[in-house]
């Protein structure tokens, strides 16, 4: 641009903004704000589904994990003639994508395998973008909270972990409030909850469990928690104290794993990460271990959901995929569940055994989030974090 011409850019900018302010341009249909009606295939038998799915011939799956690649191979072996097209797309991008596609009336996926429960339940399910389907075969074995409002097949974790090489006798953290003390100043690492939803869910859960946090404070310090001005409850006070105690925020769980788990450290930090990352200890040279027994809790578990995309082209095949992702009726879920049968993740089906090499769910003692309730306070907690 000619330099003199750029001066007039200043005149043009208000014009461009005025254009924008006038709106007009893109029609932005608001998403339907009611849940979807039940689908006619919800009660179909397995044989009926297979027959219809074979006519459909293909099914597209969005998955927040790349393990969909091995599911693809297994599914196509189990159902020859049905082509499963799997796409590895992160949960937040799936949400954006599913929402945009729904608004444009052009859904391109049939199944969404998705995490980020609070947003999924309150926006995609409540808004009718995703609908629930519980395969009759597994309905009996899945607890109510993982059948409604959306079917889950397993739980993942975000928990406190420590370096077992430096602490061979168990976790150095018995009470979460220790993390706000001088001993752990600058030595607690986690992914910034302002950047990643699952960490925000953990913060929200700590606030939701304020009573338990208050009790833990009493146990640790022998005194009631005193709230700073403008801080509503013990959960928020804990978060505030944690931030004030030099909490180190990073961008990615891998960074947490390396910082906490890296071997050969004299005085490694502790950090919040996924229990299942412990399976990479050997490959990566880490010594990650779950901080079991920490009160009031070591972290959270949250569901991985299987949603049917409303108005999608292959509803029968989509329902077959849901059935498939729930595993077969063996103890380990068989080949279709194998990619998810890892230590540190927990199948929801009560007739499946929990994977070995990790503490059973009861022993882990993590809080299981309730997506609807988390969603109610999540934005408030996010806003609170922004004031720290």
């Amino acid at each position, binding site marked *: 641009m000619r330099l003199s011409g750029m001066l007039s850019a200043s005149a043009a900018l208000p014009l*461009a903004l005025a254009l924008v302010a006038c709106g007009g*341009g893109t029609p932005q249909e608001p998403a339907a704000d009611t849940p979807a009606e039940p689908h006619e295939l919800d009660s179909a038998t397995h044989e009926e589904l297979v027959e219809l799915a074979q006519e459909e011939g293909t099914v597209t799956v969005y998955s927040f994990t790349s393990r969909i690649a091995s599911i693809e191979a297994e599914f196509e072996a189990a159902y020859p003639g049905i082509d499963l097209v799997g796409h590895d797309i992160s949960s937040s991008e799936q949400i*954006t994508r599913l929402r945009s596609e729904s608004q444009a009336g*052009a859904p*391109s996926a049939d199944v969404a395998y998705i995490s980020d429960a609070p947003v999924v339940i309150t926006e995609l399910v409540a808004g009718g973008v995703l609908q629930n389907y519980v395969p009759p075969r597994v309905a009996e074995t899945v607890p109510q909270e993982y059948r409604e409002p959306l079917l889950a097949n397993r739980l993942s974790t975000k928990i406190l972990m420590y370096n077992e090489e430096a602490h061979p006798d168990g976790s150095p953290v018995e009470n979460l409030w220790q993390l706000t003390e001088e001993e752990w100043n600058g030595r607690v690492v986690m992914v*910034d909850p302002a950047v990643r939803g699952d960490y925000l869910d953990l913060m929200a859960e700590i606030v939701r469990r304020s009573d338990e946090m208050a009790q833990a404070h009493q146990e640790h310090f022998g005194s009631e928690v005193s709230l700073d001005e403008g801080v509503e409850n013990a959960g928020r006070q804990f978060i505030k104290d944690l931030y004030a105690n030099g909490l180190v*925020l990073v961008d990615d769980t891998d960074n947490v794993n390396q910082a906490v788990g890296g071997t050969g450290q004299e005085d490694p930090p502790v950090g919040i990460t996924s229990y299942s990352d412990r399976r990479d200890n050997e490959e990566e040279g880490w010594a990650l271990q779950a901080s079991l027994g920490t009160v009031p809790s070591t972290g959270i578990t949250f569901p991985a959901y299987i949603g049917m995309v409303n108005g999608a082209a292959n509803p029968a095949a989509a329902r077959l995929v849901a059935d498939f992702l729930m595993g077969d009726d063996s103890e380990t879920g068989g080949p279709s569940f194998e990619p998810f049968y890892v230590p540190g993740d927990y199948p929801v089906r009560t007739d499946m055994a929990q994977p070995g090499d990790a503490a059973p769910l009861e022993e882990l003692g993590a809080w299981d989030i309730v997506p609807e309730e988390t969603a109610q306070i999540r934005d408030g907690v996010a806003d609170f974090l922004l004031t720290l």
Partner: protein
Amino acid sequence: MPTAPPPRRTAAGVRLARARTALTRPTAVLGACTLLILTVLVVAPLVGLVNTTLMEGGRDAWGDVFASPMSENLLWRPMGNSILVGVATAAGSTVIGGFLAWVVVMTRIPGRWLLGLLATIPFALPSFALALAWESVFRNGLIGGSTGILVNLGVAVPDWLAWGPVPVSATLTAHYFSLSFMLIAAALASVNGDLMEAAELTGASTLRVARDIALPVVAPAMVSGALLAFAEGVSNFVTPALLGLPVRFHTLSTRLYGAISTGDVSRGYVLSIVLIVVAAMIMYASTRLTGGRRNFATITGKGGRRRSVDLGPWARPVAALAWLLVACTTVVPGAVLVLSSLTRRTNDFTSGFTLHYWIGGSDPAFAQGRPGILNNPQILQATGNTVLLGVCVALGAGVLGLLVSYAITRSTGSRWLPGTLGVVSFVPFLIPGIALGAAFIAQFGAPIGPIPSLYGTFAILVLAGIAATIPFAVRSGTSALSQVSRDVEESAVMAGAGLFRRIGAVIAPLTARGLFTGGVLVFVQMVRDLSLVVLLATPAMPVLAVLTYQYSSENFTQLANAVTVVIAVISVGATVLARRLEGAAQPWNQNS
């Protein structure tokens, strides 16, 4: 042209007649047409963005961002940090890029061809490679885990050097000086040797020639490069996230991506609108600073012999400095990238090396059985797709960019048209890729009249790609075009050449270097950029950037880095090829 009825002598008639005259001026028509295209590609998605923030439930976002207890941490401090980082990146890029461009084009330092090639590489490298290179040297014990070389040698590294604004600005500069380098080198290459010879004959020193002759001539390219570096600097998310977060150094882009990825879309969009306005203001301020300086038309159609500067005793120190800069910004990060694809354990250079992630078969001990990338047919397919996409977008954006910059530099009538074109064509830079992608799905996802739904087609990727990269094409186009003297064109007019003939047969070849530079920038940006394609990439059509992302989100870092090396090699290959084509397009420069 339809014959017009004789105008009546009324005020309305006069206006009508004026409008008719304007319409018959091809430049005005061209300007109007390109503005129309940009409106569809850029303004409409932007309107969609604004609309989203104004919809029910989104309105609070404005209040939250501007007037709430959060504002300080959400808006004001990140804004200050963004401006700081952006300005530092722009300044650093201009100095380093300008210096290297001068060395490569104007001196006779040995190996300057290689120097010139290496200086274009940092832009093709992923941001994280440069951040990682910084960490591998300066990382201290703040986070825990392994530390960098300096700490391992026993040198204490203070936090300000390891984390926060200093490393963020430094690595962004190392990343984006290539932009300034390419634009300024293209401008310098067209500096008329006669001018410099004349100056030298009148006794001007080397330094004075550089300052008084070369510098003013390349000023438009410098400003363009600085603005691009600024925009890239403020919109980069990876670098501040890696090197800033540990000391809670947030920029608008980290806040923006955070808001979008934690589900607060409208707040994210408000922040991106803020980013657009801030950048527009910086753009305005930069024009005020450089004043109404006139352009120097250096491509005049007379004499074109290039001359080089004799550095005398300074040759060695200058060469040493140039090589040092290139080594720090290209060789080190490049080596870090290649090595990190070879490490047994993620980013641990002491864990031993393996070629498994390149050529290995499926082995459960590595990356849960994923084969090496050269053993993976999907990579080959994705490479083909990526190159095809890059070429299509580069051609599309190149043609549109040339037409837009022609309208900008050659408009004679009202000022608002070139001004609006300039701003509108710069804006896509500042719309976060994922937001632009979502806006494109909203806009082209449903059928519009006779146009069917483009969702899931290759076409929507190309269109969105053109929209996202048009700033590169227009910036490099304007800086190249503003050097072409109008005399040249007037001669063509005399010879009876029409507008498109002139552009095709005169302007395009004369500015080939600038145009190819723009094309390469667009291509490289398209090949390595992820945020845009991640939403739009068609299911049946993997592209390399998406594969990298998938690998890294599954913590298969070595595989991700190996694919990134492939991306970098493609980008460098494109740069080399473009230089060849450029030589072919400018046969008169062969002997230089």
